[in-house]
């Protein structure tokens, strides 16, 4: 290092190693904590989104305008199978499936329950929903499924039915006519979400259209994007593809699942409030350290000014020292944070009170933090900026120094 000013800045840090390490230690602590909690946050949001959306909702749905708020049977997409086919070939994706939905009273010999019956395309439903993959007994529907039904495990228990038993359903069709049918239970799914397992049954779309006098129509086409980031782009493409079709809307998951977005935002707000407090505390400790270090060097700074250095040279020295301290805290903090987080992203992590959230959003009982470049750098980057900002005040004080008076200081 041939730059004496940099050498000077570095050695100044170690005049009082304990004080410097305390400050750097505060940075290391908060940086590794930030890396861990932001990674955990990102990981849990991703899990919340994936588990909720993949289970059933999908990332995007095409519906008739108004259906979301008021799911009337007659708000339909006509010729829905053809339309789904066209989307699949235009978008070159099979993560697209048509559905129809109706409310029905489902009865076994013993009992009756009101619930949602879904008509699905059995060959495509597995690409947009995890439910077909969560069949615990029997099998999922196939494309020849007629008069076959799959139901959730809680519903099976409630109805006291087992594989091969028949259930009857009663509802009203698209034209308000009486809709009824008898279907054989071929599969029982278990998603882990009591809500889904209690209140859903699925039949094939063709059978549904038949029983509920839907003709060729259905209620929604559900699409899944490769990643959550591609949703806006996909949404735009779908919009273009269905342009001209009357009264159809393309809705993304934020609209389909407003609760999810709100839960994430609420969690984000409270988390960032805590991070903010942490960052301010660290910044104050830097302010304190640098103020002390400037004050105790008053005499030395006076000499330097007498030799011809300007306050700006001295301010740059103090900022360089702070930058070095912040870099040290950043490097070590990110490294430690990365080690902890990477370890926990493999073995998983749980904390008290987590079950409530886990239940609500259909999460597993262990969390897996998601280490990414962003989660590694976001928090520590803001800490470093905060520290540099905090050093501005001590640096500015140097502009008040008069060489003669400063040199008289002890």
């Amino acid at each position: 290092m041939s730059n004496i000013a940099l050498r000077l800045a570095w050695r100044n840090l170690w005049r009082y190693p304990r004080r410097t390490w305390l400050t750097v230690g505060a940075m290391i602590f908060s940086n590794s904590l930030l890396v861990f909690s932001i990674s955990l946050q990102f990981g849990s949001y991703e899990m919340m989104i994936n588990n909720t959306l993949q289970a059933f909702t999908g990332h995007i749905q095409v519906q008739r305008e108004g259906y979301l708020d008021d799911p009337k049977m007659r708000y339909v997409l006509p010729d829905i199978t053809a339309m789904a086919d066209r989307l699949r070939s235009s978008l070159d994706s099979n993560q697209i499936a048509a559905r129809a939905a109706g409310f029905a009273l489902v009865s076994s010999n013993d009992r009756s329950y009101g619930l949602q019956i879904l008509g699905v395309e059995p060959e495509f439903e597995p690409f947009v929903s995890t439910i077909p993959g969560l069949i615990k007994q029997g099998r999922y529907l196939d494309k020849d499924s007629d008069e076959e039904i799959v139901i959730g495990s809680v519903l099976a228990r409630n109805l006291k039915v087992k594989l091969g038993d028949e259930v009857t359903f009663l509802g009203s069709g698209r034209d308000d006519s009486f809709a009824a049918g008898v279907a054989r239970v071929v599969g029982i799914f278990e998603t882990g979400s009591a809500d889904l397992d209690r209140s859903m049954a699925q039949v094939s779309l063709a059978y549904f259209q038949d029983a509920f006098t839907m003709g060729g129509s259905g209620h929604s086409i559900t699409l899944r994007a490769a990643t959550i980031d591609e949703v806006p782009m996909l949404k735009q493409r779908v919009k273009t593809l269905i342009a001209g079709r009357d009264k159809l809307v393309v809705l993304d998951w934020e609209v389909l699942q407003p609760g999810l977005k709100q839960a994430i935002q609420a969690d984000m707000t409270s988390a960032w409030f805590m991070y903010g407090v942490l960052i301010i505390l660290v910044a104050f400790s830097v302010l304190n350290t640098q103020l002390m270090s400037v004050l105790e060097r008053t005499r030395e700074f006076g000499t330097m000014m007498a030799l011809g250095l300007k306050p700006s040279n001295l301010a740059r020295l103090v900022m360089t020292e702070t930058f070095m301290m912040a870099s040290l805290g950043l490097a070590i903090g990110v490294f430690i944070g990365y080690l902890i987080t990477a370890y926990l992203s493999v073995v998983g992590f749980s904390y008290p009170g987590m079950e409530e959230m886990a239940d609500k959003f259909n999460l597993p009982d262990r969390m897996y933090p998601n280490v990414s470049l962003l989660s590694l750098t976001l928090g520590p980057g803001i800490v470093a900026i905060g520290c540099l900002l905090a050093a501005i005040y001590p640096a500015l004080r140097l502009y008040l120094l008069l060489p003669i008076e400063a040199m008289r200081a002890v």
Partner: protein
Amino acid sequence: MSAIHCMQLCKTFKQGDETITGLDHVDISIEVGEFVCLSGPSGSGKTTLLNAIGGLDTHDSVEIHMGNIRIDQLDKGSLADMRLHNIGFVFQAYNLIPVLSAQENVEFVMQMQGIVAHERARHAREILKEVGLEGMEDRRPAQLSGGQQQRVAVARAIVSQPQLVLADEPTANLDSVTASHLMNLFSRLNQHHHITFIIATHDKRVMGYAKRLIKMRDGKIIGDEKQTPVAIEDVADSSG
């Protein structure tokens, strides 16, 4: 052309209700290459005069010329630049940067002057050799004696060939042998490099080295005479 020319220099200090006179209408002209001692008892205004000449302090009514420049009219930044490039300071208390080695202390000022790295190192070693500190370039101030530290401070002050060196009681903390080494060094630099020296002191032996002796009392100049300096020992000495 005068190196320094002050006219009617006044300085007062306010201390509570009291007004203390630091300098009382001082006129002084110092030529390039002079070797001047400011003598006088403590409190006579020597430091105040040096600070005024070096642009370290504000003053009341003045004209201070350095070469063609009215330094009393320069702003803070220009004053700093002038000190950096044209004036070397030596203080009573050495005032080295404790975390830098002898060579780094000298080089730091050179870096601020904008001198490139390889030239800095070579030049700093040369000048440290000249002040008799060869082999001690890497020592920190705490590992040097008082005399050695003062020589580092001198090396720092003269490394870029300033026009003027201002030294305020440079020998006050030195024993007499070390003090005479330092004065020999000053005399040699004055002879060989034509650097103007103004040294404030109340040490009789130091005054012996001056070619011109200015006596001060109560902020006034009360005597100003040329004299023949004592013979200097023209040997670089590494002791002390």
